[in-house]
């Protein structure tokens, strides 16, 4: 058994059975990180000493019976916009390059309470604004399947780290597709839960009404187990939802007989790569063969999702990022005469181009005279998008489609045409606008050798349906090999 090829749950079992020690697992991950990082650059910060110390501590707790959960001792990586106490948290931005939070995000605390060992913080698009991890101040992350290509974004580092077997699972965040799209590009499994499921306390905010933290792992079972650990009702987050059920692993039955799956025809039009379309439709067929009822339907509102998303996300971001001003933490410019110069220079020097672009757009759509026409209009559109999904879910259990219109683009090709880059979010942003859960599962490799992900979307609070279908699909698809473990022949 190749240690690094195990899933998080498999490793957890081996650790409980004492076949592997926590230290061994952590050392193996760290060795892989050292090996792969020169090519992949998935991490911003690697906390070797802390991880080894934590490993020994967790080992003791497993031995004395304190930690008995399925993920105890499993090494993990955390996206660098999620606060980790005593560990640099940069959002891959110059403006936070020296920020060490005095507290951890609720999601991180829950992971650590379950015995996960944090290896370090992963690279991302700056402040989660981007779809390729190329806007990171620390330089891009490369796709482990082909280092000439991007891993996707904004959780590119987390997805690449899992795909390169540098970690057994990672935390990402998703505001407009930032877990699902890079999961698709990197051939890993990632889920964005229903809004309000995982506490946002400690997640450095981008689009507050859209953000969610979610797990990225090698398969559905891992994601379900991880979501069970991460999800909670947190009083520190006023948008946290008290759910009726948190036992997501109970849905790993593989039973999809009679499940109604709808594929929006408006997802399959122009702009969708042929290779991606083929792989996704094949995925649907596999589910059909398992007993699900699959059909095409008109979702509607699809073309309005991206403009509505960009208005709302930029508006919220422009306000959320106002706090970065060189006063209380982060980067302060070295040369200034007065307060306003300090503000302007610190922010202009501290933020990258894409971030500044979105802050400007966001400030504009909220400004006097434009608020109604842009911001309120977008909020009305959001309401209609939600209605369209409500209507769809009256008939269907799952909506199935691609996670992205293409496979991972080549490095350096996307940033010159931001509009085109934004259009790549077409399948994912509406899910955030409506607060729905969405999972991306690897469903094929295209002719260039890059993976394709299939996105499953369910109604609010129906993650169990997603896990059920995704798990069943995995069984039908067969084992999925990550690039380090050998190429998948399909």
């Amino acid at each position, binding site marked *: 058994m190749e240690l690094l090829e195990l899933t998080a749950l498999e490793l957890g079992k081996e650790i409980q059975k004492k076949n592997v020690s926590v230290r061994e697992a952590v050392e193996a991950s760290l060795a892989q990180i050292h090996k792969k990082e020169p090519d992949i650059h998935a991490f911003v910060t690697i906390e070797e000493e802390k991880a080894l110390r934590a490993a020994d501590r967790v080992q003791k707790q497993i031995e004395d019976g304190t930690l008995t959960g399925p993920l105890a001792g499993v090494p993990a990586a955390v996206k660098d916009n999620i606060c980790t106490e005593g560990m640099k948290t940069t959002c891959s931005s110059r403006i936070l390059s020296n920020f060490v939070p*005095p507290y951890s995000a609720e999601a991180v605390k829950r992971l650590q309470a379950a015995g996960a060992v944090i290896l370090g913080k992963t690279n991302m698009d700056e402040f989660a604004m981007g779809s390729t991890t190329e806007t990171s101040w620390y330089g891009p992350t490369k796709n482990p399947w082909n280092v000439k290509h991007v891993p996707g974004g904004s959780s590119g580092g987390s997805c690449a780290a899992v795909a390169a077997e540098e970690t057994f699972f990672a935390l990402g965040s998703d505001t407009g597709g930032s877990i699902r799209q890079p999961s698709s590009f990197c051939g890993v499994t990632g889920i964005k839960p229903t809004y309000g499921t995982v506490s946002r306390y400690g997640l450095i905010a981008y689009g507050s009404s859209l953000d969610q933290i979610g797990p990225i792992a090698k398969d559905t079972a891992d994601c379900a187990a991880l979501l069970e650990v991460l999800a909670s009702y947190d009083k520190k987050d006023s948008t946290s939802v008290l759910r009726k059920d948190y036992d997501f692993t109970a849905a790993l039955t593989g039973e999809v007989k009679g499940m109604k799956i709808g594929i929006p025809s408006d997802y399959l039009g122009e702009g969708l790569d042929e290779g991606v379309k083929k792989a996704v439709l094949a995925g649907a067929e596999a589910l059909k063969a398992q007993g699900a009822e699959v059909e095409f339907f008109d979702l509607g509102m699809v073309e309005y999702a*991206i*403009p509505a998303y*960009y208005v709302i996300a930029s508006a919220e971001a422009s306000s959320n990022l106002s706090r970065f001003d060189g006063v209380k933490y982060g980067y302060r410019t070295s040369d200034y005469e007065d307060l306003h110069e*300090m503000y302007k220079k610190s922010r202009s020097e501290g933020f990258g181009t894409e971030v500044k672009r979105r802050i400007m757009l966001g400030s504009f759509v909220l400004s006097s005279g434009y608020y109604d026409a*842009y911001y309120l209009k977008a909020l*009305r*559109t*959001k309401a209609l998008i939600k209605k369209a999904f409500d209507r769809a879910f009256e008939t269907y259990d799952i909506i199935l489609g691609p996670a992205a219109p293409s496979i991972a683009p080549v490095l350096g090709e996307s940033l010159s045409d931001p509009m085109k880059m934004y259009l790549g979010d077409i399948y994912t942003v509406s899910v955030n606008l409506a607060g729905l859960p969405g999972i991306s599962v690897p469903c094929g490799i295209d002719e260039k050798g890059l993976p394709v992900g299939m996105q499953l979307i369910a109604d609010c609070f129906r993650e169990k349906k997603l896990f059920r279908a995704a798990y069943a699909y995995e069984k039908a698809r067969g084992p999925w090999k990550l690039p380090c473990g050998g190429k998948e022949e399909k």
Partner: protein
Amino acid sequence: MAVKIDDKMIEYVGILAKLSLSPEEKEGAKEDMSRMLEYIDMLNGLDTSGVEPMSHVFDIRNVFREDEVVNGDASEEMLCNAPQQKEKQYQVPRTVE
């Protein structure tokens, strides 16, 4: 609707967002914003009359805390990332009033 994004508008937005752009950056920003807004104008083709703007996706209300002091002195932690501090306060250039 196609809003005209001119130099004055970029200046104005720069003041709102506390960003100072170089002349090249300003040109780039004007172009970017114009393109984005043109695209966003597509929303005008959608009839949203009678639709309430939806801020929150779920109908959650009344999330409260009790009026009990639960925090103590966290001044060390709060100040530990300050770029400049003096006498346990954040130091900034002189403010106008």
